[in-house]
């Protein structure tokens, strides 16, 4: 299975629900361009929901890091929701789990934006 991306809103926060694999290839390009589009519409808040992602490689890590840096520089915010299994392990090995805030549930992730002035 490739990567499926769906987008929904909760207040001013955009939630990207991902399903499948974030690995190099055509589907990765759509993930990267979607993140870039959101990152450029700062200030904005983005939750990347990895609950149903089964694999991520360095190209996926690269897209997340670039989006995180772009958003943060522009006054926005990006958080990650519920990575599991090997996806979580990759995020830990690459130290992303310490760079980008992680939340185990959507309510906590959304609550983190309420404490952020740009998204109050």
């Amino acid at each position: 299975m490739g990567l499926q991306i769906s987008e929904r809103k909760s207040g001013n926060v955009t939630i990207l629900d991902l399903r499948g694999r974030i690995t190099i290839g055509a589907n990765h390009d759509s993930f990267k361009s979607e993140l870039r589009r959101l990152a450029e519409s700062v200030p904005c808040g983005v939750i990347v929901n990895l609950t149903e992602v089964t694999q991520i490689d360095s190209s996926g890590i690269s897209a997340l890091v670039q989006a995180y840096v772009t958003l943060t520089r522009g006054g926005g915010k990006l958080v990650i929701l519920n990575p599991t299994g090997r996806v979580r392990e990759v995020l830990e090995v690459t130290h992303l789990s310490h760079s980008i805030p992680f939340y185990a549930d959507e309510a906590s992730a959304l609550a983190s934006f309420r404490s952020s002035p740009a998204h109050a």
Partner: protein
Amino acid sequence: MCDELPAATELRFDSYHVDLRTGELRKHGRKVRLAGRPFAILALLLEQPGELFTRKQLQERLWPANTFVDFEHGVNAAIQTLRRALCDSHSKPRYIETLPRRGYRFIAAVEKINSSDGTVPAPFVRAPENGVPPRIDWVGQIATICDDAGRNYVLLPVTEDIFAEMSACEAAKDDLGISLLVAAEKLLLVDCGTKVKILDASNPDLGCKVRILGGQFVGEKAFASRAHLSGLS
């Protein structure tokens, strides 16, 4: 007036050579990146090999009075950087031993080279009998990427310089720095079990230059630490 002999400005231990005047550390004649407080700690420990240096002493010697920083973190980070530069281990130290809740001591034999007494320091040459010699026999061998911690992935720096940069980031707990190196593909995320070919093993206890033979980065060169290589004979 000081009656003591001038302190040695150059020291050797194992395969390392320390020049206290220039602040340089070399291994087998090759420069090892180490500066700032990690180098200062090494210099302090080498003043009195075998003697305990307390964390308080390190703090007093390395930070000016009235400095308000997290000394505990600062000392820990500097010791970690120093250990990485020396390929030393906290659990099985060859050079720097931790005395829990007290401090550190240098446990290897140290040779002082004092040029002020007329002795001309011998040029430092590779000394296989003291250190780990190059493993020319490894070149061309196929090894397998592994991880002692049992993880499924490792990060392989593309060069020794990036290896040093990664170590510095780890010592400073600069997690974003590590992630950015991954994003820039200067640190390659490689699956354990991936085969690599050894291209250079001139510094085998630190690691080897390798060619990656499978996965996302097939064909790329990288530098694999010894701990991440298995199957070498």
